[in-house]
């Protein structure tokens, strides 16, 4: 952590190679966050845009120890801006089911991107930081620039929405397994 703080200070003084090393250290984690908010297609471009904004605003970072959460906030905003500039997403119900039901609802086989599309972008960000990063509510609030109560509200709504989508799929899966047993496979 101390090593990163000194690199952040060097980058704040305009040292581009120091900044590049910070980007390299955070790249994979930030692409993961961007994937959850945007999907695979635009994730890396959004991280690139976000990191250019980080460079341009480095002088505003007062506490180098808070670099990671500060970067996550900027990259999240870059992702949310991209989402707003896109055409509205098609709701999951409007997307035709694949002809082979087993490939869509097989055991543990989720089309994660398709399921995440039912959530609002900010809900995806909150859920990512909860489920994938394991952050606390106040850390998530700092990363997204919202208060802890808003974090809890977004998470509750996101989980309710996911259950609405996933539980019928799980019920269909049970039916598939039950009918396989009945035919004596």
């Amino acid at each position, binding site marked *: 952590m101390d090593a990163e703080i000194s690199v952040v200070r060097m980058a704040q003084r305009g040292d581009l190679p120091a*900044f590049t090393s910070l*980007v390299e*250290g955070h790249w*994979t984690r930030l692409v*993961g966050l961007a994937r959850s908010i945007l999907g695979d297609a635009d994730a*890396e471009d959004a991280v690139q845009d976000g990191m250019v904004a980080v460079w341009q605003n480095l002088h505003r970072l007062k506490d180098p120890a808070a670099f990671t959460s500060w970067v996550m906030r900027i990259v999240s905003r870059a992702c949310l801006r991209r989402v707003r500039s896109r055409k509205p997403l098609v709701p999951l119900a409007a997307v035709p089911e694949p002809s082979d039901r087993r490939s869509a609802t097989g055991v543990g086989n989720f089309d994660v991107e398709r399921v995440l599309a039912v959530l609002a972008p900010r809900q995806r960000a909150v859920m990512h930081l909860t489920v994938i990063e394991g952050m606390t509510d106040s850390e998530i609030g700092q990363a997204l620039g919202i208060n802890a109560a808003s974090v809890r509200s977004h998470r509750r709504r996101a*989980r309710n929405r996911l259950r609405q989508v996933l539980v019928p799929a799980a019920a269909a899966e049970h039916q598939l397994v039950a009918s396989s047993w009945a035919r004596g496979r």
Partner: protein
Amino acid sequence: MKTDKDPLIRFEEAWQEWVQRPPETSAAAGAERVAAAVRASRRRRRPRWIMATAAAAALLVAGFTAHFVLRGPTPPVPTVMAPAAVPLGAGEVLIWLDDDTPLYMTFQEPTGGTS
């Protein structure tokens, strides 16, 4: 049985796996992309600085031009009358203190008393 597990928990596990796939661009290559984008954004900024300087210079030129054009014709400088052109009577003397300031003096015959 796997299918009995809470579907939300199963989804979150699948999500972990999905997110943790290696990015298409490696971390080193991604960092280079960002550095190139930062350098390109610096180059894009320079023309704005040049334009700002050009605008300031244009304002300066416009200001000077307006000052000299709008000031109007300069007021006529008073002509200095050559001494020979000024009619002087007897006993009158004209002395030019400077180009603009004539001094007329008149000498009179003393009428009495001591000088």
